[in-house]
């Protein structure tokens, strides 16, 4: 694929073609500046270009209600039998109109909490209600995961979020992203958005309510040891793939699992998800809400709920 086409596709996903990853900006991006003309540099450019070319163009129409409906039995078995999922408070999600669902993220690259919540949302509101989830570029570019687009998963970018909300859909975002999802096991009951407030700006721009979605159990599906931030910086993955972490965990079948790129077999931890009451930002915080105040409020609400859910659990994994 030519560099201009790659840049075009990346731009349509909301990425700055001249941005940090700059996969398509041959000879212009930082990767090139760092990579130089040596073998390592060329290899790095080839890999980033491959990844970028795999990021699908954001098309909300790729969500396929019939496909989702036919996959509900599989999701139901996974959620109900393997993860013994329990989803509470879906009545808090407004019945109609756009809504921003803001979740804490757990479970490494497999994120079982998303599967459990996706099933619950689609059966509760019906597959006819448009529901999108933002995911990391790498997730969408992984071979074998293209089916996620049929479930309504689109690359995480402000443009895609805007498109989804403007279409009147429910949108699930995980502000903590890869940073939160790979937090160590001993921080499993902690909401950690790393100070990211983009979701608040998004809700204000589109004047949509925020529904916090708190989940527990996902971080017990493997023994997550470290985010590997230093390792990621050393390998310049943050610049190349927007990956601020290179997680290290103990997980079947690999044992020591570095990067979690090939996924792992998640332990059958009990997953509980709770949707909280909707927050109308302007009604609660005035016409021009202070982002820090809103952020602290939402994180506190979610943390308190997570603490309550944690208090219900007797043992990790077992629940």
């Amino acid at each position, binding site marked *: 694929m030519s560099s201009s086409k790659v840049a075009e596709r990346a731009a349509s996903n909301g990425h700055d073609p001249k941005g940090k990853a700059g996969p398509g900006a041959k000879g212009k991006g930082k990767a090139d500046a760092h990579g130089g003309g040596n073998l390592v540099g060329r290899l790095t450019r080839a890999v980033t270009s491959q990844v970028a070319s795999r990021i699908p163009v954001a098309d909300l129409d790729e969500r396929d209600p019939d496909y989702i409906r036919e996959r*509900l*039995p599989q999701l139901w078995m996974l959620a*109900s039998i393997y993860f*013994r*999922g329990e*989803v509470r408070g879906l009545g808090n999600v407004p019945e109609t109109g756009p809504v921003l669902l803001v979740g804490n993220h757990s479970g490494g690259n497999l994120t079982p909490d998303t599967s459990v919540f996706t*099933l619950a949302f689609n*059966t509760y509101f019906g597959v006819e209600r448009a529901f999108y989830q933002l995911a990391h570029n790498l997730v969408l570019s992984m071979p074998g995961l293209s089916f996620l687009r049929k479930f309504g998963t689109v690359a995480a970018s402000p443009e895609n979020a805007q498109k989804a909300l403007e279409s009147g859909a429910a949108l699930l975002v995980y502000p903590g992203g890869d940073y939160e999802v790979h937090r160590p096991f001993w921080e499993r009951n902690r909401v950690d958005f790393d100070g990211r407030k983009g979701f608040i700006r998004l809700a204000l721009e589109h004047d949509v309510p925020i529904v916090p979605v708190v989940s527990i159990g996902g971080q017990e599906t493997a023994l997550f040891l470290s985010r590997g931030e230093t390792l990621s910086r050393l390998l310049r993955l943050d610049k190349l793939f927007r990956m601020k972490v290179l997680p290290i965990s103990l997980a079947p079948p690999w044992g020591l699992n570095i990067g979690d790129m090939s996924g792992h077999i998640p332990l059958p931890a009990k997953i509980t998800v709770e949707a909280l009451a909707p927050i109308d930002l302007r009604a609660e915080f005035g016409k021009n809400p202070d982002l820090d105040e809103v952020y602290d409020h939402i994180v506190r609400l979610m943390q308190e709920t997570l603490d309550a859910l944690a208090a219900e659990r007797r043992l990790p994994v077992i629940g």
Partner: protein
Amino acid sequence: MRVAATTEISAPAEAIWKLVSDPTRYLEFMSGVTRWEVQSEEPTGLGARYRMLLLVGSAEIGGLIEVVEWNDGSDLAWNSVTGIDQRGRWRLRERTRGRTHVELRLSYGVAGAGLSGWISERLAGPIVSGHLRRSVQQLKRLVEHEQLRVSAAERRKARAAA
């Protein structure tokens, strides 16, 4: 997959029909049902539509249903419009005076889901079956207790008149 539950209720079919034909009372006796809301202009009768959800495992499953058969005092059947495929039926038969045989049937599935659909239907079977069994038992208690209250009120009235 089809599941059913039956019971004998010591009450005339008319008294039971009052409950099973009233969508506002479903949450009182239907086990596992989290919603049974009227979605049509006419709350009852042929063509009435409800949004119903039944908790099965980790999901509330159901959707929009429509009444497709309505025989006063004996049969009420519905079909799904959206959500999973389902067909349900209340069947009331007054075998002797003041004693009614009640049957609740439910067929469900997801067309096009293939083998995973077949397996999940069977795995969900005991849960759905348990909900149906508890529903008819709760219906029996509700109706019979109402019957007791009615007969007690009649006795009091008779005593007061004497």
